[in-house]
């Protein structure tokens, strides 16, 4: 009799123990995910839970998508800085090129609160506390650099080094990192001109009252590409001050934020971000000024 009862008693005790432990949610969590691959499970390769389309990664950006961030307004060609970054993040998350779907989302819709049609959006979003109220940001994938621009025929149009800029009359917007870049990095002999806005600075450049102006790189591409007649990017300056940071935008409280941030962090650590920056931004028209 004893031999029959013992397993029963032991079984009952185990059951009782199990029921007690089941009551505490922490224990419950560990029992269900207590597998050797716990860390991988948080971001399962190619099978993230909670994506817009299961098994696919849906990435948003605006239409049109401008150079040098994208090329030919085709985000899915992998060309351009942000397209390349987007595909590298996807790859780190275990998604092949075929598993990436692009969707067109306007800039303002992407950072507005509300349901999202993308898993993450890449469109030169600066990370700000105000925007963090409405959306999640990944780790930054780009720190905005300051850039000297001028017009064709200016005496600094062919400058390659910081030393060649020291004799120039430069302008910048008041109170910006751009102005800080002039005074801290270029240190020109002529007193710089300071303007109320970048538009005033641009007007002074067009008039030839300054030889060049300093703006951040995205503005530099826009001004030389769309606004200035004969606009030329002289080059990017070394990092200065507290730079603006670009991050990927995700839905507020998205389950993917941690995984996407992790992927971006990996890309930064292994130097992939620096390589892409050099490929698409430095070699793509905004050389480094040493």
């Amino acid at each position: 009799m004893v031999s029959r009862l013992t397993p029963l008693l032991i079984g009952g005790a185990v059951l009782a123990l199990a029921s007690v432990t089941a009551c505490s949610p922490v224990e419950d969590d560990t029992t269900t995910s207590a597998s050797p691959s716990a860390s991988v499970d948080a971001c399962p390769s190619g099978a993230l839970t909670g994506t817009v389309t299961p098994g696919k990664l849906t990435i948003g950006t605006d239409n049109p998508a401008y150079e040098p961030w994208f090329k030919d307004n085709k985000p899915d060609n992998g060309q351009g800085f942000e397209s390349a970054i987007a595909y590298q993040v996807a790859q780190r998350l275990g998604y092949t090129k075929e598993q990436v779907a692009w969707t067109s989302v306007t800039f303002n819709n992407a950072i507005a609160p509300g349901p999202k049609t993308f898993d993450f959006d890449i469109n030169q979003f600066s990370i700000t506390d105000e925007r963090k109220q409405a959306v999640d940001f990944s780790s930054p994938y780009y720190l905005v650099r300051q850039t000297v621009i001028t017009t064709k025929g200016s005496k600094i149009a062919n400058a390659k080094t910081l030393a060649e800029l020291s004799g120039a009359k430069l302008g910048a917007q008041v109170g910006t990192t751009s102005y800080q870049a002039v005074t801290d990095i270029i240190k020109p002999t002529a007193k710089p001109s300071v303007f109320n806005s970048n538009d005033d600075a641009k007007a002074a450049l067009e008039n030839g009252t300054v030889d060049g102006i300093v703006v951040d790189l995205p503005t530099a591409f826009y001004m030389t590409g769309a606004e200035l007649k004969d606009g030329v990017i002289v080059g990017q300056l070394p990092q200065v001050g507290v730079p603006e940071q670009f991050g990927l935008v995700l839905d507020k409280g998205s389950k993917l934020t941690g995984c996407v941030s992790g992927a971006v962090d990996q890309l930064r650590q292994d130097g992939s971000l620096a390589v892409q920056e050099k490929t698409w931004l430095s070699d793509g028209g905004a050389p480094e000024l040493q």
Partner: protein
Amino acid sequence: MTYAPSARQRERIVFHRRQAIRSVLLAALSTAVVGVLIVVGITGSPGWPRVKQSFLNVDVATKYLPDILDGFWLNIQLFLVCAPLALLLGLAMAVLRTLRGPVFFPVRAIATGYTYMFRGLPLIITIYLFAFGLPGLRLQGTPDVLVLGGAAIVITYGSYLAEVFRAGIESVHPSQVAAARSLGLSYRQAMRHVVLPQAVRRVAPPLLNDVVSMQKDVGLISLAGPIDAIRSAQIGQAGSANFTPYVVAAVLFILLALPLIVITDRVTLRAARTQNAGS
């Protein structure tokens, strides 16, 4: 025999002295009460520590003072050049506007149009037009933006001063000109030796007032790009997230204006005395 005031006179002197002391004491007392109320009211307000920290920060002030002084020197130079030019321009325009005779109609029309236009045009816009518009024409020999901005200030203030001068010229009674002409002076001589001296003396206070006003408005030159005291202060404010640099610039501008303000007051007082002396 020496003068000895009568008992009644001595009483009067004592009374007047007592009255004088009493009124001085009363004035001091009421000033002290008002002063204490203001100080208590400001320093006792809940936001005072924060205001003091962000507007009256000694560390920030000493940090940015050299830069602001550097920019302030530009303001002073600009004022010293612009003020005489604006006075000359204003005087010239006023004289042109008072020319008589049909031949001079175009001249009068231009002078009148000038005063109408530039008194109506906000100085900020004039500076923008001069400093950004004129170089945009890309003409040979376009001067520096500093010169262009200065020209905008001179032209704007010239139009105000012109109207003050004209008021002065027209306040001189026509009989003065008639008398001068009957003495054999030409119109120009009558203007130069009879009318203008009286006119300028009469309108000296408002003229100086406009000059004081101009002294601070030279700070708008910063719109054109040069770094003056106000722009230096703005740069300091952006760098320190503290408004003290503006207060530093404000104090400098007040110090610069004080001598002129004192002169204006003296001139006004003297003008009032001479004008009332005859009546």
